[in-house]
């Protein structure tokens, strides 16, 4: 039986943002900067062909929210900049017209004069501080903090010191459905439909920017969101513009991002440069790590990017016991689109850092890569506090590693002449904040309104099955409805591998709450369901006190052609621990998609900019997005599930595929190159393009 909501999507029976058409609706188009950095000299209006032209002058100096981070210099993104544009694609003005077709014709007539300035594109350029993007803070460095824990004096007892530098290119989220919204200001209320991961977050952001009371804003999402990958959590300048336009015109205003816009719009992911040292004893015991993680934040602080260097730094010790760690976490401004969470959002970056170091250590000591990991991995059942203070809840890291090791050895004897890697990681599940879930019982149904938002995930089927277990009610009586700011008091949203874990925990508590309420009413659940009218309405806003982590281990096999310098993954194995799988095939599907993305970051994907900040990834083909024919391998998965300490006992999986596959593919590729060319390359960037390899191998020979 195919999963109901997937069948709807495949058969074209779902609804996306652009399918929603309100009466009297008009369309908004954003005119964007063609320069990475320039002064805006003049904006010439297009006569009276547009219903509305919005510029910084007409809307004022509105700033997008950015989550504050201690010790960070925060520079927020203007909705429309008044003086200087700071990335190619930055909104400069907006026009509103009656028809979508006339939008770009009319925008073509808005002439904007710029005076180009010298842009800052790379992390290295930003650190030089020769050109300062935001003169008001006098530096390109937004954040520069050092995280330190444990006794770093042990570093001097090290017999071996390993160091690896890696620069990961920026990535574009590329959901199949780009972003979009409809804003309708009517009767003193702002109604917004957004293709979003979090209606609550969009509402909070809009309230903050517009200075509007939060209870006057309702944010809803269409039935389906066509992928998001972290890119659809906050509100964007375009949403604010649509809201302002609707307030001025008193008509519904729609904005839908085009693919061309999406490739160079906020937010982009990765863009991380790391230099990390690992200290160890001769027997393979790791003492600790020391180094730095620098994130290219782009032109502004936006959403949670200010703290992203700290997040990566905190995860850099991986699932290993260490005595000490000292990591400098730096965030720099450049003239690129603001960065933001994207598929793993720091987790894959960190896994690449600790797993390359582990393999380098094995190499240096002539040890088996499994043995080095085995020696340092967190014990099964152990609660471990990392030197930087992250508490890793008890799980089965040893067993997960051993299971992957079996496959690793099997692949090693099966695939001669290929590159084979094994990696382990602890996936941080973003449980903080929890989730709201509401039961509405009566009229023949147990309706569950959930705060998470599916983006092709099978939330309805998964939570219906889970609720049926904990409520002890047949699935047919249960209806799961993704909620929004109107139907729930509290909600968070779907990101950070969290939804199954927190929604299941909330449903578990809700079931208990409902049971005690029904017993005080002297009603059985089935009586309550069957009664006419709603007899019980109960919302649980579940907020766990801690994050939990999910163990994972991946094994990749890469084939490399020394003549063309191109590579392919040919076999793949992934072990996971989701605590308790709600729908096994959905867990697998999450891994399949994530693994492809991790592979793609290594082999193809990259938002690449020229020295003057011009995007070279102007189409999906240039960007390197994989498509089905690129999947020339199979992924075998295995669940070794141990319950977490949260109600329901789940752990997450959403970002596990990407997190494992980036490191495993990178390392397997490195090994494949060594096997096939005899050159002991050490890769130091993604994507690993043939031209980069050509240089690397030539220099080494």
């Amino acid at each position, binding site marked *: 039986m195919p999963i109901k909501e997937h069948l709807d999507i495949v058969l074209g029976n779902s609804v996306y943002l652009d399918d929603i058409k309100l009466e009297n609706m008009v369309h908004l188009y954003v005119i964007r900067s063609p320069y990475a950095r320039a002064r805006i000299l003049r904006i010439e209006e297009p006569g009276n062909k547009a219903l509305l032209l919005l510029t910084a002058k007409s809307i004022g100096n509105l700033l997008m929210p950015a989550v504050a981070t201690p010790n960070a210099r925060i520079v927020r993104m203007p909705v429309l900049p008044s003086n200087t544009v700071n990335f190619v694609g930055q909104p400069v003005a907006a026009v509103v017209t009656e028809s979508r077709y006339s*939008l770009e014709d009319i925008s073509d007539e808005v002439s904007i004069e710029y005076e180009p300035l010298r842009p800052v594109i790379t992390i290295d350029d930003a650190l030089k501080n020769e050109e300062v993007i935001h003169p008001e803070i006098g530096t390109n460095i937004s954040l520069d903090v050092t995280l330190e824990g444990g006794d770093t004096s042990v570093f001097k007892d090290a017999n071996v010191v390993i160091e690896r530098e890696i620069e990961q290119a920026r990535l574009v989220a590329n959901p199949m459905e780009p972003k979009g919204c409809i804003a309708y200001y009517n009767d003193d209320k702002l109604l917004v439909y957004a293709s979003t991961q979090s209606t609550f977050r969009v509402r909070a952001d809009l309230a903050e920017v517009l200075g509007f009371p939060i209870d006057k804003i309702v944010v809803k999402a269409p039935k389906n969101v066509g992928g998001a990958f972290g890119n659809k959590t906050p509100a964007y300048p375009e949403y604010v513009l649509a809201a302002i336009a609707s307030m001025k015109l008193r008509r519904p205003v729609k904005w839908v991002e085009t693919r061309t816009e999406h490739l160079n719009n906020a937010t982009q992911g990765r863009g991380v440069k790391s230099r990390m040292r690992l200290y160890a004893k001769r027997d393979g015991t790791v003492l600790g790590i020391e180094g730095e993680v620098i994130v290219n934040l782009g032109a502004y602080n936006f959403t949670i990017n200010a703290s992203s260097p700290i997040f990566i730094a905190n995860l850099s010790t991986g699932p290993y016991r260490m005595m000490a760690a000292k990591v400098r976490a730096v965030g720099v401004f450049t003239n690129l689109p603001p960065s933001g969470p994207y598929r793993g959002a720091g987790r894959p970056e960190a896994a690449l850092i600790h797993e390359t170091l582990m393999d380098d250590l094995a190499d240096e000591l002539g040890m088996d890569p499994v043995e080095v990991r085995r020696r340092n991995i967190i014990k099964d059942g152990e609660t471990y506090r990392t030197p930087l203070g992250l508490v890793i809840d008890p799980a089965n890291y040893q067993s997960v590693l051993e299971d992957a090791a079996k496959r690793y050895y099997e692949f090693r004897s099966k695939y001669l002449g290929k590159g084979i890697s094994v990696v382990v990681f602890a996936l941080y599940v973003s449980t903080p904040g929890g989730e709201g879930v509401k039961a509405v019982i009566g009229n023949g149904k147990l309706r569950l309104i959930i705060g998470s938002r599916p983006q092709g995930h099978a939330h309805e089927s998964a939570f219906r099955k889970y609720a049926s277990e904990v409520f002890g009610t047949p699935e047919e009586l249960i209806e799961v409805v993704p909620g929004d700011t109107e139907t729930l008091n509290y909600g968070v949203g779907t990101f950070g591998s969290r939804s199954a874990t927190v929604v299941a925990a909330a449903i578990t508590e809700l079931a208990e709450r409902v049971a005690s309420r029904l017993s005080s009413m002297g009603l059985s659940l089935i009586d309550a369901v069957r009664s006419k009218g709603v007899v019980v309405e109960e919302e649980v806003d579940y907020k766990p006190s801690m994050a939990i982590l999910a163990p994972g281990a991946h094994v990749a096999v890469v084939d490399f052609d020394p003549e063309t310098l191109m590579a392919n993954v040919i076999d793949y194995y992934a072990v996971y621990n989701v605590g308790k799988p709600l729908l096994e095939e959905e867990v697998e599907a999450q891994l399949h998609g994530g693994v492809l993305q991790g592979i793609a970051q290594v082999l193809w994907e990259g938002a690449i900019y020229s020295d003057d900040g011009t995007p070279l990834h102007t189409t999906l083909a240039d960007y390197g997005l994989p*498509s089905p024919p690129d999947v020339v391998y199979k992924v075998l998965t295995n669940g070794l599930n141990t319950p977490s300490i949260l109600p329901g006992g789940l752990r997450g999986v959403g970002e596990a595929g990407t997190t494992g596959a980036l490191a495993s593919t990178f390392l397997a590729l490195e090994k494949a190159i060594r096997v096939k060319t005899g050159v002991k390359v050490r890769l130091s960037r993604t994507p690993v393009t043939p031209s980069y390899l050509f240089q690397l191998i030539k220099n080494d020979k």
Partner: protein
Amino acid sequence: MYPPKFGYVRVTSLEEAVKVLESDENAKILAGGQSLMPMLKLRLIRPSYLVDINRVPNLSYISIESDRIRIGALVRHHQVEVNRDLWKIYPALPETAVQIGDPQVRNLGTMAGSLAHADPAADWPATLIALRASVKILGPPGVREVPVEDFITGPFTTVLGRGEVISEIVIPRFSGNVKSSYVKLERKAGDFAVVGVAVMLRLSQDGSVEDASIGVTAAGPKPFRPVRPRRH
């Protein structure tokens, strides 16, 4: 991603298309639209009229004759891909077709359109040069035939003059034992070629090579025939 305003004419013969193109130099033929529509949506071109030839009858033929093969202006990549005779006579042709883009592109895109578009990384030119094919051009003064290697003069430029359209592609057939193949190097499935090479060989009875012909694409501003292949 929305095109500028353009006019649309549907013609029922190539002669009619020639007339429209002759009278308006900014009009453009619309065949499969697989190069034209993306350029239009990205506003890289602003044609006055699209001259749609898709309803012109009898242009979708692959005509296999004793001394040549004629391919009509509306033959889609996919038709070449599934043509059993071509797999026998010149496997290089279907081998090229299957490596172009994805099924959607191959169902609509045409060989003639690919040649007229003259993308320096297009696949067809390498194979057609190796097979010594020529392009039949219909224009105001009548018909002329130009070898593929002379037809494309640079990136996105051809010898097509005002009012001229491609009516068919003519591929000569040779007697004896003929082998052909097209090999494409691409970074990802469905990408444009990093480089593409087609080879045709005529073998004598004893298996020695009597005649060899090579076509190369994506290795310069235009596809070319390496005239003196060197030994390595």
